[in-house]
């Protein structure tokens, strides 16, 4: 009786199939890098082209009027900051309040009802909030309190963007608070602390890294939000730098949208349309920096339990 060496290497057909499947999935994963590279290259090429085409002193001029060759960055960056700041003023208390309530106070039944409603709010498209800001917030609320409000204004756009990011802030920070172990709460109760003190002095600080991350993510969303601003902030065509948020003005995204609208019939100075790519690149790096910062922040300050 001969003992032939047992072949344990398996069915070669089966092994080939394994390899094919693996390569298929791997290429899907690698594709995401292709997308990033495509974004960066499609932006950088024309952004540099823009800088070469224009008179660089026009980046520091009187107002943002791309069709007249005036590309004042201060104007659009300032307006973006104003809108984002207003949005954070709206979204921070409402989002954090809702998240503390949902994570610490709500009964399981209340959670089951409230969470899906928050998700509905999260699913509302930004065009809808833009229209709401233009036709409800401005005429029904803002003009009542501030009679000098312009029909399109930065304040209404900021409030609209703020409403849009409430669910994001609420759900990310709620997740952070729910991740705080129950033992911390029990220890706090054991020392005689009431519910509110436990929530605000124990759970909230323990989840702080996640909560700050939710605010940074919210800010990054607010900076990149386009349609609310395009509809409610006005100033299609260009604007001077506005200090008063009750006036209309163009933000970075607003400027991009109004250039995009006229994308096939842009007439104007050299670089008018290409300014879109330059602003887009700036926007890309601003939000990228915020996102990376929020991730670093969580990693650095997260308490491990």
């Amino acid at each position, binding site marked *: 009786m001969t003992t032939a060496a047992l072949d344990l290497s398996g069915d070669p057909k*089966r*092994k080939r199939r*394994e390899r094919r499947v*693996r390569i*298929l*999935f*791997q290429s899907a*994963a690698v*594709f*995401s*890098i292709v*997308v*990033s590279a*495509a*974004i960066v290259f*499609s*932006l950088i090429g024309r952004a540099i082209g823009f800088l070469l085409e224009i008179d660089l002193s026009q980046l520091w001029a009187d107002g943002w009027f791309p069709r007249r060759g005036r590309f004042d960055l201060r104007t659009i960056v300032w307006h973006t900051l104003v809108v984002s700041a207003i949005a954070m003023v709206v979204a921070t*208390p*409402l989002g954090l*309040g809702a998240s503390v*309530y949902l994570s610490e*106070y709500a009964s399981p039944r209340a959670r089951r009802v*409230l969470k*899906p409603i*928050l*998700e*509905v*709010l999260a*699913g*509302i*498209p*930004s*065009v*809808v909030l833009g*229209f709401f800001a233009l*036709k*409800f917030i401005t005429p029904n609320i803002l003009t009542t309190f501030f009679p000098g409000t312009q029909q399109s204004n930065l304040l209404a756009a900021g409030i609209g963007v703020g409403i849009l990011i*409430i669910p994001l802030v*609420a759900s990310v920070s709620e997740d952070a608070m729910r991740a705080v172990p129950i033992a911390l709460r029990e220890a706090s109760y054991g020392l005689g602390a*009431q*519910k*509110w003190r436990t*929530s605000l002095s124990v759970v909230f600080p323990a989840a702080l890294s996640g909560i700050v991350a939710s605010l940074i*993510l919210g800010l*990054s969303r607010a*900076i*990149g939000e*386009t*349609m609310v601003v*395009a*509809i409610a902030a006005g100033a299609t065509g260009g604007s001077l730098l506005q200090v008063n948020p009750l006036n209309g003005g163009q933000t970075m995204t607003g400027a991009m949208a109004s250039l*995009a609208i006229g*994308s096939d019939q842009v007439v104007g100075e050299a670089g008018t349309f290409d300014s*879109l*790519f330059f602003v*887009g690149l700036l*926007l*890309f790096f601003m939000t*990228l920096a915020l*996102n990376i910062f929020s991730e670093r922040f969580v990693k650095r300050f997260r308490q491990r339990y």
Partner: protein
Amino acid sequence: MATRSKMPTTSDLVKASISGKKTDFVGIAVAFILLLTVFVSLGILITLLADMLIKGWSVFADRGWDFISSPLSPDPEKAGLSQAIFGSLILMVFVVIVAFPLGVGAAIYLEEYAKDTRMTRFIVANMRNLAGVPSIVYGLLGFAVFVQLLSGITNGRTLISGGLTLAVLVLPIMMITASEALRAVPDALRQASYGVGATKWETIRHHVLPVATPAILTGSVLTVARAFGESAPLLLAGAVLSNFFSAPAGTGVVTLVTEGDYTALPIVVFNWARQPQKEFVAITAAGIVVLLVILLLVNGVAIYLRDRASRRAA
């Protein structure tokens, strides 16, 4: 002993002070403020929905189905949503066909195959950052790559360019939700499958995917819903903002997709919202109602799927 108990002892005093019926005003105030923030958010949502219904109601009352079935028109009395709804549906088909397999495939690679190498970590970090890129930047990508560079394939400003742009936009979100779904599958299932001699792919196909499918589908439906409401990237990826004529009746879908002008529901809403005439307010609100009804239906399906799956798991 009995005589002593008449005097209040230290422990009695402590007990009295602990169980004292002092009202916890701060506690009530905090609970009230927290509840208030929730109700303000709810109030905003209800106000928004009510405002759209009130402003748009006359359109549904006067025109009914005609509003859905009419093409675009500069006359707000005649303008309708047929081209917008068609465009949005085709865009979603592209999102599902392109982003779903790529997203799920990449997630399977990252969760099931990839070892913790530098490359893997780079792909994951890159995916997270892509998810945070503002949607209008994807519009620039769509314009530069799909409308211009690949115009030989996409034929320029067509539904193909728009659909591919939206697909690329939601790809990272699709990957993240699918990854989370796969991570939730208990490892014991995989070990058991390897134990009886299954290969990696057999394990994934017969044991991991069946368990993860409800969560993957829920996440994908929500992601598609998000793409449905997106408009900023389409402004650049070739959607037509002004009015255009419908193709003559009987034109094949393929021709419409590869050659025709296109628009989408949120784009039409945007275009109507910026018209100065008062008559456009009503049809904008009515268009928003249609958009929200579709989104609520889709979201409702997803949330129902998830609830059913989580109840079954519990």
